[in-house]
């Protein structure tokens, strides 16, 4: 379990996260949602250690992230996989080399073993015949899959995704969402996704944390989101007519 307590982060004296507390559980797909500038990305970057919070606690299965020494932190980071918004694939490396990179850095496996593992994860994300291509030669959806493959190649315990389906068409976005959820269940990972996409939230958000102006304004599941009367999240999620109608239909059905 990842436990976050009273997380506070500021930039140049401007508070961005104002005391956020929540937990993320194993085998569940958790989502952080909120408007642009609400602090979602900063929150995610604090969780993975790219930002150091001013105060608060982040605990990975009992290990307090802020109190670990460099070696322990490095060890913890090996247990973390991250899918970046733009993929963050290394341009000068092929798809195969990109995915093999963490294995090369952290294992003593032979090349053939590493290649087997690379092919296994590529197969897992349904990407074949792309091994020798460079990131610039494949589509955005394929880049996201490669990014997911690289994130899971080391069998991480924790998977973080920063807007994994931004810029993708609805079909590909759904495929990516389902893939992340399947992998989460299969490997019993703790998955935290930062998203704007309400389709994803409704589809795979087993736990949803809604941030507003750096504060946790609501938390619950994708089922609870239909029933909630919390004004902040209702205004955010049901800002489109389509979702308003979906909610009405759901509430009528469950009456």
């Amino acid at each position, binding site marked *: 379990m990842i436990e976050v307590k009273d997380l506070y982060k500021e930039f140049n004296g401007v508070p961005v996260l104002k005391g956020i507390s929540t937990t993320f559980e194993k085998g569940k797909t958790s989502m952080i949602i909120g408007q642009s500038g609400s602090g979602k990305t900063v929150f995610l*970057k604090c969780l*993975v*250690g*790219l930002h150091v919070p001013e105060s608060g606690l982040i605990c990975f299965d009992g290990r307090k992230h802020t109190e670990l020494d460099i070696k322990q*932190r*490095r*060890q*913890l*980071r*090996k247990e*973390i996989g*991250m899918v*970046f*918004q*733009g993929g*963050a*694939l*290394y*341009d000068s490396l092929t798809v195969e080399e990109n995915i093999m990179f*963490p294995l*090369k*850095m*952290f294992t003593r496996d032979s090349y053939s073993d590493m290649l087997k593992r690379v092919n296994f994860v590529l197969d897992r994300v349904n990407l074949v015949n792309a091994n020798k291509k460079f990131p610039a030669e494949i589509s955005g959806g394929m880049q996201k899959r490669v990014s997911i493959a690289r994130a899971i190649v080391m069998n991480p315990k924790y998977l*973080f995704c920063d807007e994994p389906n931004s810029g993708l068409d609805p079909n590909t976005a759904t495929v990516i969402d389902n893939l992340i959820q399947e992998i989460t269940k299969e490997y019993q990972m703790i998955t935290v996704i930062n998203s704007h996409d309400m389709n994803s939230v409704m589809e795979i958000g087993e736990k949803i944390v809604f941030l507003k102006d750096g504060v946790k304004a609501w938390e619950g599941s994708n089922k609870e989101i239909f029933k909630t009367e919390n004004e902040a999240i209702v205004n955010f999620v049901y800002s489109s007519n389509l979702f308003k109608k979906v909610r009405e239909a759901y509430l009528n059905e469950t009456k």
Partner: protein
Amino acid sequence: MNYLKHIGKYFIMLKQVFKKPQKWSVFREMFFREIEDLGLKSLGIIAFISFFVGGVVAIQTALNVDSPFIPKYLIGFATKRSVILEFAPTFMSVILAGKVGSYISSSIGTMRVTEQIDALEVMGINSLNYLVLPKIMATLLFYPLLIILAMFLGIYGGYVAGLLTGKFFSEDYIYGVQLDFDPYFVKYALIKTLVFAFVIATIPAYHGYYVKGGSLEVGRASTQAVVWTSVVIILLNYFLTQMLLG
């Protein structure tokens, strides 16, 4: 005050760079890649410029010593001295600051703005050590070779210029090149080259690594990197000359 902040940050960066590589095999791979990108790919331009600069120095000297009281071998002597002491180490380093400096700064800067550096950090990799140390080692190893080549080609350029223009005899030129040869001058040039090589690898890396924003900022960082690298080379050249020859 801002300059002091940057200087402090630069040295803090160097502290992170000079750590034991996390995996030697990966470091070796990166090192050879950098030898190719930063060294071998600069061979052509260095050869071209040094050959013609040597030729121009010889012609200019010949035009300016057009007196029966000044021996013609002085052309070869002056060309050798100019090329070894200044043109090869300093002038070529400024050229490399432009070519290699902008490459280092923009490649690292692009990695920064596309979150590739964040991806390294999340994996638990010391990104500065991984990205910058191979560049420093490659430039330190390869640039002295490049500068020695520039010395030879510069002097040879002067010789060819004499042959083509007929302004001086090649025997005089060769005699002048051989006259009063002091190996310390080559040592001095190589010491300067090592210092400049370090500057060429690290200042652009600093500008690229700490860039914030998008492609426009990467472009700006690249320009700043070239300007500052050149300024530091020129300043260090003055102090090193004073220290080593003064």
